[in-house]
């Protein structure tokens, strides 16, 4: 089963009782989205019975819209966002729910009676039948009521506005302007200004509500490759990260420890993992990000596979402690689900602007490993990679994902635990040959010792360590040597990661370079041009520091190289400082939005044609 949505399109379905005004909400959304130049296809879906009873599945009215910048050929199959105004609407779509999709429900409508009428046995919001979905429980009816309570409308007119609440939320999620709809109402109800005001107010209330609760947009991102045979399930990137960490702990034969503090858009990793206490995962919701990472460092010292998760501002708070993990050479996985910056910035929007912080944001010369995930499902693999490198090389590893893929979903080919490669923590065993800072010859990793083990008692800390013994040392030569050793240790990770691959010819007019969660879109843009016979190639980085061994080779023999990223050129700078012999051109987008295939192709065509 292959979904027919394109990477850049979204499917939304408004569903409610026939009286709930779903068709109006749908068509208002349609005209706004058409107006801002989107492709679209819609599918209004009325109840088949003329007078189906209120609150039953038969009485559900739906409006599905598929919109986007390209590739929209049909209304699509399953929605990315379902708005269910009552239990029946949820039930009616029950078999067409794409796991990991977002479901906005009007919780006010979930009375035991309504639930029964819809044909549910229990309340689907309370049992775990929606565990695979991102459910937003919004009290739509009551908020609608209270938002316009003072207009003095009759109850029927009030309740009739609630479709506008849903519409307001969806407008916020997809960054669409309200003006057109406001005008529509002002015009339509020019003689009934109160009704116009009511609809507009409710729409704004829905819009504000989504902003207030930092609701996150969903999308389907599809790995462009053909799917291999196997069992699949849809997953968001955050869920995949969580599951990947569970798998890594299992393969490394360690307990998983998560120390974290909530922050949008990373919190869902916590929400997901905390459901799985049965697996033995230890969760510490800390008082702040600093305690979050410090607890993880402590847990790592004590032998757990330790993880901390956050987003930009929280990352800033963790930097001092990351330095400690570097100095103490402890394994640690730091997941940063990037959002728009600087400062609080755009908490619900996507961006790739924390790369500099990941590479350089610490006092002193403080090297560590930086990875990124390229699609929702690759979060699973990269979470395992981050864990593997951390415990085998005894180093903190930063894994950068981004709101777009963390919240976006795609089918993931289920990996059973036996299909995954073992992870070999660099544990101390031989007391004779061991010192706190004695190193593995190949990786330069020091040994991991679990407190409680007799004979291996030792002390570590943030002051400069003496080589081998790990005692405090202020000696000049030792410091120089240790700086070098820490650098070399991270550099040697290169021997343990895959080579960089290129899609396309070895020598080209234009090499497109990407990293992180924009993979699908970049791939789509380049593939399209390649099919047109354009002289273009593509390489995408998941390993950002150290860079794969053959990186220099990959850059050779192209007339032009363009680095595409959702920031002001941070990866391009990073490459430029290491490979001065190539010229890295830049295509940066900093709008809190993912790339679009069209804009990329336009740019690439320009670069291909320019002399």
């Amino acid at each position, binding site marked *: 089963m292959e979904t027919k949505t394109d990477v850049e399109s979204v499917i939304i379905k408004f569903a409610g009782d026939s009286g709930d005004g779903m068709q109006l909400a749908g068509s208002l959304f349609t005209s706004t989205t058409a107006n801002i130049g989107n492709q679209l296809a819609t599918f209004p879906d009325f109840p088949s019975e003329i007078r189906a009873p209120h609150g039953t599945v038969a009485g559900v009215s739906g409006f599905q819209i598929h919109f986007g910048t390209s590739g929209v050929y049909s209304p699509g199959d399953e929605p990315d966002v379902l708005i269910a105004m009552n239990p029946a609407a949820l039930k009616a779509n029950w078999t067409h729910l794409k796991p990991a999709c977002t479901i906005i429900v009007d919780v006010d409508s979930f009375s035991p009676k309504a639930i029964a009428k819809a044909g549910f046995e229990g309340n689907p919001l309370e049992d775990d039948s929606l565990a695979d979905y991102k459910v937003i429980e919004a009290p739509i009816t009551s908020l609608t009521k209270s938002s316009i309570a003072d207009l003095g409308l009759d109850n029927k007119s009030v309740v009739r506005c609630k479709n506008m609440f849903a519409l307001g939320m969806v407008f916020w999620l997809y960054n669409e302007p309200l003006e057109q709809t406001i005008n529509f109402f002002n015009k339509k109800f020019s003689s009934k200004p109160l009704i116009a005001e009511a609809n507009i107010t409710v729409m704004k209330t829905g819009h504000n509500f989504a902003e207030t609760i930092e609701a996150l947009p969903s999308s389907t991102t599809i790995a462009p490759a053909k799917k291999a*045979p196997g069992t699949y*399930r849809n997953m968001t990137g955050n869920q995949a990260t969580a599951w990947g960490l569970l798998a890594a702990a299992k393969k490394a034969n360690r307990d998983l420890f998560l120390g974290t503090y909530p922050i949008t858009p990373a919190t869902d990793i916590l929400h997901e993992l905390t459901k799985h206490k049965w697996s*033995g995962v230890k969760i510490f919701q800390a008082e702040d990000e600093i305690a979050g990472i410090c607890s993880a460092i402590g847990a790592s010292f004590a032998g757990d596979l330790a993880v901390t998760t956050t987003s930009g501002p929280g990352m800033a708070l963790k930097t001092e402690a990351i330095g400690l993990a570097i100095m*103490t050479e402890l394994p640690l996985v730091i997941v940063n689900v990037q959002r728009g910056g600087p400062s609080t910035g755009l908490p619900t929007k996507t961006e790739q602007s924390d790369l500099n912080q990941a590479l350089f944001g610490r006092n002193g010369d403080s090297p560590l490993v930086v990875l990124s995930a390229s699609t929702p499902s690759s979060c699973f693999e990269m979470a395992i990679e981050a864990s593997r490198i951390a415990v085998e090389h005894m180093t903190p590893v930063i894994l950068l994902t981004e709101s777009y893929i963390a919240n976006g979903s795609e089918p993931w080919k289920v990996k059973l635990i036996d299909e995954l490669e073992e992870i070999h923590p660099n544990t101390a065993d031989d007391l004779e040959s061991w010192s706190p800072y004695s190193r593995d010859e190949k990786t330069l990793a020091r040994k991991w010792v679990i407190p409680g083990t007799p004979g291996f008692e030792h002390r570590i800390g943030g002051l400069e360590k003496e080589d081998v013994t790990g005692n405090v040392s202020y000696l000049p030569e030792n410091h120089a040597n240790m700086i070098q050793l820490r650098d070399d240790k991270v550099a040697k990770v290169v021997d343990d990661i895959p080579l960089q691959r290129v899609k396309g010819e070895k020598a080209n007019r234009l090499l497109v370079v990407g990293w992180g969660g924009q993979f699908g879109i970049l791939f789509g843009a380049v593939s399209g041009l390649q099919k047109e016979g354009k002289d273009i190639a593509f390489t995408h980085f998941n390993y950002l520091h150290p860079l794969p061994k053959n990186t220099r080779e990959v850059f050779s023999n192209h007339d032009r190289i363009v680095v595409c990223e959702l920031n002001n050129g941070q990866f391009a700078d990073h490459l430029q400082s290491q490979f001065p012999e190539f010229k890295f051109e830049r295509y940066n987008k900093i709008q809190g939005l993912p790339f679009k295939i069209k804009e990329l192709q336009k740019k690439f065509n320009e670069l291909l044609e320019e002399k």
Partner: protein
Amino acid sequence: MEDAVTLKPKEYASTQEVKWCPGCGDYAVLKAVQMALSQLNIPKEKVTFVSGIGCSSRFPYYMGSYGFHSIHGRAPGIATGVKIANPDLSVWIASGDGDSLAIGGNHFIHAIRRNIDINLLLFNNQIYGLTKGQYSPTSELGKVTKSSPHGTVEEPFSPGELSIGSRSRFFARVVDTDVKMMIEVMKEAEQHRGFSVIEILQNCLIFNDKTHAEVTNKETKADNQLLLEHGKPMLFGADNNKGLRLNGLDLEVVTLGENGISEEDILVHDAENPNPSLQFMLSNLKSPLALGVIRKVKDTTYDQALHDQREEEKQKSKFKSLDDLYLSGNTFTVN
């Protein structure tokens, strides 16, 4: 704790040279810890000392146990991770008044609130020692230091008051001049399950010498120290004939035999009373200063509760393996 050959106090020491100033109060604490551990017979590999930054935070280097000299103020975070990851360890924090109450204040109050089973030694010398003498959050009002040449203008925290305000289950106060008292209190703290704070009035002879002298001086201490013992009347003084009684909501010093006062009138210390009111008053008392275990209340610990919840979920969950999870719910097949 498991059976093991009893180690002598010295065997808990590391081979590192102790670098504190000779005469620093920290030495006595180190000695007391080693004696307490020896008396408790805890194998040294089961002990982990975590610290922040400061003179006192060098502590872990001098113990032959596992140790982590971390970053300023963050020891409770690190120690929490250690304890959750490995609940079998006897986890201790060594931390200064700056480390715990200035930069680390938040972690301090949260660790107390959560009641995770860790023992915190609070070296209160009322000064930032390592950075050469700036006032700390426990320096008394008006104190002249390097960073307050004209005297401070801020009220200090009282660690006991702050602890109890943070839902403390175990708070004790000791003086660095009384190793015996320290040993007893440390043993009690270690055996108490939960977060135990031991405030140590510690002398920094370089930057804040004699700041606790009134309480610790041989000549004055009998009148200034109230040694609390659970279940015992609150008597003190050179002749043990002074005592505390409750006058409305004020603690009043009275003398046995004067104005018809007899031992009946004297308050009896109840460290185990969950109602912290009297303990709160005791911790705020200036003269005499209450020493010993002021509060010690049994309660579930965070680490235990977390562990129990995991075990319960293991029983209850429909998933028995990750494969179960991965294959649960909505999957589909591509051929």
